[in-house]
């Protein structure tokens, strides 16, 4: 697998240096691997910290900025960050109003954020966590580590970030974050695997005519393998799975997300199928995103995330945002 890197050992730090050079609106602490807003914490505002393995760009560093995150801490590729990083980030964004930790439901992320929250509490910082677990391909937490956090993370960070910008207290910011998660569902499909730079070979092999259904965002295999089909058939399978879990009706926010190696032209083909499918159910897509927002290195494939909107959530979604990867209204 060919990759544009200098060395497998410096992938994350080299990319952070590039992020810092490209975006003067960000302050990047390369040694601790923490990205914050260049202006520092806003007085009286709840701080939003997110983090997770690298390899999902633009998540999370690309979502640091006005109206969204205050800090992000990337771990190694597909490996959750460590508590020390999260503590540095939490202290950097703390202005006394408390800090929200946006945690995707993976064992490593949960354990490390839990330890970081304890360390922050020892230093007198109030931390509330929100656990994102929108991926319906994982069926039942009785038999698994529970549903994974995937596309809804982008919605949670945007909407909770907007409410925090309006100086809402930590309890309300945490509540809206949890509400967005509860109202969101995702399903992912891979056409190819991806290669962790330090591993040097693809995580799994897929034949020319095979796809992997129900993938997460770490190049891990999904729930089942199936034959390659048309965009319409694959999209229907993904949305059937979501519809069976949360009936699709009313006003919806929909994201068709590329996994890193999918051409935009194909994502628009998928979006068209999503639109057709949802119209058939009598639902209305009132807001949408089409593009690469939460990726899996160079994997080919897509995920679709649906959030059942309320007027309040729509208003917060529409609020101004100014980050490297999401920007409008300002």
């Amino acid at each position, binding site marked *: 697998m060919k990759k544009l890197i200098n060395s497998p050992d410096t992938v994350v730090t080299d990319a952070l240096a590039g992020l810092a050079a490209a975006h003067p609106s960000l302050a990047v602490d390369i040694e601790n691997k923490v990205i914050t807003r260049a202006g520092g914490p806003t007085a009286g505002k709840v701080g939003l910290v997110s983090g997770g393995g690298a390899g999902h760009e633009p998540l999370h560093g690309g979502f640091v900025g006005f109206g969204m995150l205050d800090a992000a801490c990337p771990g190694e590729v*597909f490996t959750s960050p460590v508590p020390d990083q999260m503590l540095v980030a939490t202290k950097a964004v703390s202005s006394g109003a408390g800090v929200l930790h946006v945690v995707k439901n993976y064992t*490593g992320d949960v354990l*490390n954020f839990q330890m970081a929250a304890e360390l922050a509490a020892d230093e007198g910082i109030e931390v509330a966590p929100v656990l994102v677990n929108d991926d319906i391909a994982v069926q039942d937490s009785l*038999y698994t580590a529970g549903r994974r956090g995937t596309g809804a993370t982008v919605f949670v960070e945007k909407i909770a970030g907007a409410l925090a910008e309006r100086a809402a207290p930590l309890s309300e910011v945490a509540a809206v974050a949890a509400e967005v998660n509860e109202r969101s569902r995702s399903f992912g499909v891979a056409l190819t695997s991806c290669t962790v730079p330090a*591993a040097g070979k693809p995580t*799994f092999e897929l034949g020319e005519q095979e796809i992997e259904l129900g993938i997460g965002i770490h190049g*891990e295999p999904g729930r089942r393998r199936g034959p390659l089909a048309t965009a319409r058939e694959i999209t229907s399978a993904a949305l059937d799975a979501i519809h069976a879990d949360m009936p699709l009706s009313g006003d919806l926010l929909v994201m068709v997300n590329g996994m890193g190696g999918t051409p935009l032209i194909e994502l628009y083909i998928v979006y068209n199928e999503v639109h057709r499918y949802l119209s058939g159910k009598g639902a209305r897509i009132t807001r949408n995103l089409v593009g690469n927002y939460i990726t899996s290195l160079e994997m080919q494939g897509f995920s679709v995330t649906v959030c059942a909107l309320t007027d309040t959530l729509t208003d917060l979604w529409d609020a101004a945002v100014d980050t490297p990867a999401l920007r409008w209204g300002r």
Partner: protein
Amino acid sequence: MDAGFFRAWVTEIAAVVQTQRDHLTQLDAAIGDADHGINLSRGFGAVEAALAQAGTPTPGSVLILTGATLISKVGGASGPLYGTAFRQAGKALGDGPEVDLPALAGALEAALSGVQKLGAANEGEKTMVDALAPATSALSRAVAAGASPAEAFSALAAAADAGAQATISMQALKGRASYLGPRSVGHEDPGAASTALILHALRDVALRQAR
């Protein structure tokens, strides 16, 4: 067993996870996200660097520094879980300059209990607990039966191996492999495999020093 013994154990672990780095990563690629060997190799490399810099006069202090460094440097699930295991073992060993076999058996029980509390995993769920739990009981049983150190450490390593092998037929109920459901059956759990390597390293160091 003094602080030097435990430093030798950690050095042995660092060497073994480096040698087995790709094997562990391949096990993880089959049912996880292909980073276990990479992360442990990076983590124990950092532990060696930390031990070279700090004074660790007692067995307990060696294991506590090992655990704290793993928590600070590794990330993922293995960082907090192995970090907690070593920290709890170190705390259980106390402040003495030497520890005996019963104390070490008690420390491994403390490690197991710390891992189970943090990760909420029980035996049979295809995790590191499936190697650590039988190995810990095997050591405690050997100690209670008055076995020699050589016999006791061999029982520990053999039970860890058998435990890791037994994960092949299990369906994962915890950790990232659980997302695969029934597809996780037929693969050795990478965490159980690395636990077996770590306990093998303990046996090897003990047998070498007994000579």
